């Protein structure tokens, strides 16, 4: 048996949580650096796994770093079973990176520091767990455990309407998850012998009666769509984002939303290809609605953070569109690219919004103007990420959107894809207007004359995101090689 890398990635942050809880709460400095150390360790570990996977395992679709299956609760056939493949490795990478970045960005948390970092590390552990679990029960446990620290992080350290946002998020996601639970149980009792192994159930799914497939597929879809969030399940998102503290928004946008699309690709898509085929048009329609609706609502926002939040709805709509074009490897690769790139870009945008808010204590777009004169470095970084977000060639957003359009154009209804392309134009509209109104124009010297520039810690936090955004934009090949074998395998499974 080799070293349990995946378990370490999951449980190191958990250990970090325990350690942080043991530090007396006055030692704020120790708490911060301990949590950063633990998250950096998990990050390095996930980088190393990505590196090793790329060179040694990416040629085949088989699970790598497999741990288990070990018996966990034999009476109920529950196993401890971990493994990664080409679609989970990038997600793990993203989680490791964004968690460390967010913890670094959270150093300005002033109240109840100890609890904050403890919850954050618990959140990181659960997110890692979701991306590596191969047993349904284990997957579900991680999926749900995540809600608790998230509830506290929004509810304690959030904005003025934090209580409402926190409970809305909690209830909404739990509602979806419970649908998933019912589906899992139906699958469990259909399989012979009863199993909760996700990989095993992918073989069982297509043999189920058509109606049962449809029911399970729709239940899974509701659970995952709430997480993504697909229009019309998106209403928790703006509330949660606006009230959440900066770092939590980063995690929410960067990792949590991807869980929905990841889970679709991992679980419900290959498991019920028949249901998928009969519903793919509707899924595509939902994706396109999300793209257009998200972009239009973004345009109308007065609050900068809400603008970015709705742009997430729009960008995740591209993922859903790509997922609807499930028979095209290019489209699915585009979806994965979009997940990674949206994680990097929107994560960075939320960080930057937080930077501005910390200094100006307002996020109202109309309150600013001409900031480019006063804070040129900040402006530069913000413009960079806005450009990336609107899909400027040379950055990751362009690559992913291009791949999605190329992939889905051949498979899906052409009018639908055509409308989706409009979403890119709308994206450019709201982002450019935002830049214009905040950074260009008349500078209000009296009000913003003392606005400090972005500091070194904050630059360190966004720098890796910027580097990766450009790197993927210029040279996307490594990322696509990382997952191509897995995606081809998935497409074959879905063609059954």
């Amino acid at each position, binding site marked *: 048996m080799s070293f349990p890398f995946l378990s370490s990635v999951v449980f190191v942050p958990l250990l970090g949580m325990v350690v942080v809880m043991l530090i007396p709460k006055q030692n704020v400095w120790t708490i911060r650096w301990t949590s950063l150390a633990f998250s950096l360790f998990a990050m390095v570990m996930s980088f190393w796994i990505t590196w090793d996977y790329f060179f040694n395992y990416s040629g085949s679709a088989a699970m790598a770093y497999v741990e288990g299956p070990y018996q966990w609760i034999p*009476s109920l056939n529950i196993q401890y079973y971990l493994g990664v493949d080409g679609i989970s490795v990038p997600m793990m990478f993203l989680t490791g990176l964004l968690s460390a970045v967010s913890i670094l960005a959270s150093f300005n948390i002033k109240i109840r520091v100890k609890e904050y970092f403890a919850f954050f590390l618990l959140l990181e552990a659960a997110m890692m767990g979701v991306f590596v679990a191969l047993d349904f*029960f284990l997957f579900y446990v991680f999926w749900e455990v995540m809600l608790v620290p998230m*509830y506290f992080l929004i509810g304690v350290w959030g904005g003025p309407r*934090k209580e409402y946002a926190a*409970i809305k998020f*909690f209830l909404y996601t739990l509602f979806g998850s419970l649908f998933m639970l*019912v589906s899992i149980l*139906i699958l469990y*009792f259909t399989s012979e012998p009863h199993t909760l192994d996700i990989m095993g159930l992918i073989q069982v799914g297509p043999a189920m009666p058509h109606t049962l497939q449809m029911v399970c597929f729709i239940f899974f879809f509701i659970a995952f769509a709430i997480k993504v969030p697909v229009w019309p399940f998106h209403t928790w998102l703006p509330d949660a984002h606006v009230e959440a503290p900066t770092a939590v928004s980063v995690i929410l946008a960067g990792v949590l939303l991807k869980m929905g699309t990841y889970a679709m690709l991992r679980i419900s898509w290959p498991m019920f290809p028949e249901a998928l085929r009969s519903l793919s048009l509707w899924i595509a329609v939902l994706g396109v609605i999300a793209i257009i609706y998200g972009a239009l609502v973004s345009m109308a926002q007065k609050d900068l953070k809400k603008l970015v939040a709705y742009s997430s709805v729009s960008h995740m709509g591209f993922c859903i569109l790509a997922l609807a074009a499930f028979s095209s490897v290019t489209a699915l690769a585009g979806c994965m690219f979009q997940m990674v790139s949206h994680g990097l870009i929107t994560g960075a945008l939320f960080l930057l919004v937080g930077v501005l808010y910390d200094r100006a204590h307002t996020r109202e777009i109309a309150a600013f103007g001409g900031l480019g004169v006063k804070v040129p470095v900040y402006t530069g970084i913000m413009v960079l990420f806005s450009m990336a977000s609107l899909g400027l060639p040379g950055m990751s957003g362009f690559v992913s959107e291009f791949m999605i359009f190329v992939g889905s154009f051949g498979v899906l209804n052409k009018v639908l894809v055509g409308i989706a392309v409009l979403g890119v134009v709308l994206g450019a509209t709201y982002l450019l207007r935002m830049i214009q109104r905040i950074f260009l124009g008349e500078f209000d010297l009296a009000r913003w004359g003392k606005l400090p520039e972005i500091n070194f810690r904050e630059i360190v936090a966004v720098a890796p995101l910027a580097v990766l955004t450009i790197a993927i934009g210029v040279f996307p090949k490594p990322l696509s090689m990382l997952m191509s074998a897995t995606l081809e395998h998935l497409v074959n499974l879905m063609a059954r």
Partner: protein
Amino acid sequence: MFLWALVVISFDLFTKRKTGSAVGYLSLVGLLVTGFILSITGYGQGFTTMFFNDPMSLFFKIIFLGAAFMAIASSFGITSQKIVNHRGEYFGLILLSTVGMMFLSSSNELLSLYIGLELTTIPLFVLAAFFKDDKLSVEAGIKYFVVGAFSSALLLYGISFLYGLSGTTDLVQLKINLAITHLTFRNIGLILVLSIVLLLAGIGFKLALPPFHQWTPDVYEGSPTPIAAFLSVGSKAAGLVAFAKIFLNGLSAFYGPEMAPNDWGKLTGLLACLAMIVGNVLAIRQSNIKRMLAYSSIAQVGYIMIGMVAMSALGLASVGFYIFAYLFANMGAFGIVAFFEDKTGSCQIASYSGLSKTSPTLAISLSVFLLSLAGIPPLAGFLAKYYVFASAIDAASSDPSYSWMYWLVGVGVVTAVFSLYYYANVIKNMYFATEPSLYRVDFSVPAMSVIVIGLVGVFLFGLYPEPILRFASSIPLSFGFVPH
């Protein structure tokens, strides 16, 4: 044999006329000794076939002992403040009630079952009214007494019909006789329907299954908090044992659509649905935490009944595990409510505001217990819900005529979301407030022990439930269910 347990507890009862909290400790020791004796005595039977010490009774005896232990350990605040002169009676009555439960869980015959149930509830009437000067407590006692006596009468009436139909009170014999009668006459007729309805109503009152639940919030609110806790776990578990014995054993032939109108399955399923809906919806509006927990316990019994009506080995095992998980979470939550009340005199949810700053241990423990009750993994309460739903889906998917159980699961799932709202509301008060609480709650040793036992139970049996699951899967053997 289990009679040893009786002896030990009775002995304990007589030695407690001294004053001082030594009495309480003595009763705790008595419970531990009883538990020890239970663990070394094997299965067996006494008075020919009247009493059995089978896997089911053993499992539930452990639950009763656990509930009594935690209730007594959370009572030290009350006994040293409010009822200094009657400590002996207080602890003695709890133990007496526990004896009744254990008696009940071993009995295999309708009359001794009834006697066990009475022995369980009569001490509880007194305990509910223990604060003699407190109007609410007296009201609780009277209310509980009237309802309890009424439901016992219904139950007895139902039992008399069963006796009339079968000529025996022995449950195994009853099962055979009824089946023979049924096969001979094709249809037993309305008497059995009447009997089933009466039995269901009688036990329904004890279990607080809607529409027989109205007494619960008032009684819980008025009685001393540890007694409310004991009521919610111990006496409910006793009611569930009685239900299982009468319906899943004695009347097991009269289950399933082909048995209509004698089918008790759907009727019970309907009550379970009502329990989940009524309990979870009404709990949302409560501002008193004891009333909230009362409604939540109504809902929890609804979930347990899903396992019962699944009428399978898996279902029975899930019932056992559910109660086990519920024991730790609910006793823990009530325990903390009791300590908080001892200190502050308040049971309002609003007065928990900001508690996480002044008493972090208390706040985090209460949160864990509530999240377990809400069924959030990896806590024991989640696995319990998972198991119960699994049993229902198993039953529904293996036989199309039970597909109505999907609806049970559906109701369970949707109301579970409601339940999270009111549990999270308490957590919200403790954590999200910016002002620190006015109160600071410190613990005594017994209080600490309640919290620690609760936390260990909730975490351990959520993460490593295998031993208990094994034990719980032996429960169905008592009724001759074979796991498939």
